[in-house]
């Protein structure tokens, strides 16, 4: 059984059909990608998967459980984490506090136990901080833990978004154009980091990406979209050779 299974997903805004009967699946432990030209519906699909949009029809299953139409925080708690295309950090808070936010859904102490300073609450706080630090270290920005997130370089802000998502201990992490705005050197680092996420933590990765080079390099399977429809699905080699893909996307890009 696939970890993430999308069946006949449909989404429309008014009369505009944004997604039409999209079906694909992501196996556990895979690194897969969704690609397509601008306006193909990639981010809309992403927003359906993460609960920000409510699809008109079809189903989404995570580890066999239906998650279609659940609110975003429930979906994250069930093990699907995301990053944002235009970095959405809590810029006015420290880097560590940002990373700690991922642990919110994995902890439970509330207002009353914080006021009473219960020992179990203190232990949980320690655990949240330690987890935050661990993921900052994993992405390589632990030395910036106490700086404000907004003061990080662009590349480090991208890393922090990854650390924050990973801190929610997901089964699968969805990366929305993680290479946007990165230079070649930073893109190489990103490829390395994405492989490490899967190899060292076992977290499945689904990328939405514009950058063809990066997608071909890192993905084991690619789903190609155009005009809200899936036009191809397969290994990088198969997709690269597919005439429909070349016509829709690669032909104009390369």
């Amino acid at each position, binding site marked *: 059984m696939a970890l993430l299974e999308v069946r006949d997903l449909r989404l429309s805004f008014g009369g505009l059909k944004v997604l039409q009967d999209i079906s694909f699946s992501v196996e556990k432990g895979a690194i897969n990608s969704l690609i397509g030209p601008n306006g193909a519906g990639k981010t809309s699909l992403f927003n359906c998967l993460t609960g920000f949009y409510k699809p008109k029809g079809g189903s989404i299953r995570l580890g066999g459980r239906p998650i279609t139409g659940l609110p975003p925080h429930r979906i*994250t708690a069930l093990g699907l984490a995301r990053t944002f295309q235009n970095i959405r950090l809590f810029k*006015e808070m420290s880097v560590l506090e940002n990373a700690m936010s991922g642990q*919110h859904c994995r*902890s439970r102490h*509330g207002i009353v136990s914080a006021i009473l300073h219960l020992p179990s609450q203190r232990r949980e706080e320690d655990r949240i901080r330690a987890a935050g630090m661990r993921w900052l270290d994993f992405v390589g920005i632990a030395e910036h833990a106490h700086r404000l997130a907004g003061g990080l370089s662009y590349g480090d802000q991208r890393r922090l978004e990854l650390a924050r998502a990973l801190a929610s201990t997901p089964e699968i992490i969805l990366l929305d154009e993680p290479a946007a705005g990165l230079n070649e050197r930073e893109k190489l680092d990103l490829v390395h980091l994405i492989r490490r996420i899967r190899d060292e933590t076992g977290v499945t990765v689904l990328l939405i990406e514009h950058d063809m080079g990066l997608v071909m390099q890192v993905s084991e399977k690619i789903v190609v979209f155009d005009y809200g429809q899936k036009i191809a699905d397969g290994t990088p080699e198969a997709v690269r050779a597919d005439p429909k893909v070349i016509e829709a996307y690669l032909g104009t890009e390369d």
Partner: protein
Amino acid sequence: MSDGASTLSAAPQPPLVRRSFLLWALAALACALALPHFANAYVTEVATTALLYVVLCLGLNIVVGYAGLLDLGYAAFFAVGAYTTGILTSEFGFNFWLTIPVAMAAACLAGIIIGAPTLRLRSDYLAIVTLGFGEIVRIIARNLDITGGASGLVGIERPEILGFKLMQVQHFYYAFLALALLAVFVCLSVERSRMGRAWFYVRYDEDAAAGIGINRVSAKLQAYMMGAVIASVAGCLYAAKMTAISPESFTFNQSLLILLGVVLGGMGRIPGVVLGAILVALLPEVLRGAGTYRPLVTAVALLAIMLFRPNGLWPDKRG
């Protein structure tokens, strides 16, 4: 994991109060404790009012400063507390201390009734709903028999502690000082806890907070309810101090004044809010000499502060 990070991750939680700040805080506390021994009744009375505003502003700061929700009807929760104590002691002969948990429960309930449907909305709508709520509570208090109508309630029982009855200005000064210190402790504790961080996440970026697994409606509702509870406790003690309350103590102006204290000092940060609250209480007294020009001078002073210190007098470093 590298060694460097493991030492970092072992870093302890930051203390509730920074050491450099602790000395100043203790000095301020010593002054506050000594004040009634040096000051006359008028000064003590004004200082008591200042402490009341400290409690109210700290409570509203949770809603506005932490969670970023604009509440224009905060005085309604203050009224809920005052009227709960007033009605239960004067009509039903309750002990003052027993009215506090009842008032807290009533404030929670009122918070849920107003918050649950409206906190799904964006902040501007919330401002309008809370504005309406503030007026509704005041008008209900004006028109019910049990609340004493427009003339309000009189003869509210004075509280007793171990056989000692709180009577004089000084007694209530210390009672409000204790409540203010408790409010500071509560805010400090919650500010740096899991829920406190969740409020800041929601305030700075609601969608990112939801995407990272935070139930934004629940987080906002909890901030709103906690603010409500703090205002209601302040209301209980206020009713006991005044022994008489009327709807005119809980007007829209009162809500605005509390909000002013929060924004003036620098919302989101406890020292700033305390400073703002004290200023809001002192300004009318300091300007008493200005006579009929007082509102004008107050307005100009406030405009100057907003112009030159737009983030408040003592702003949050988070910005």
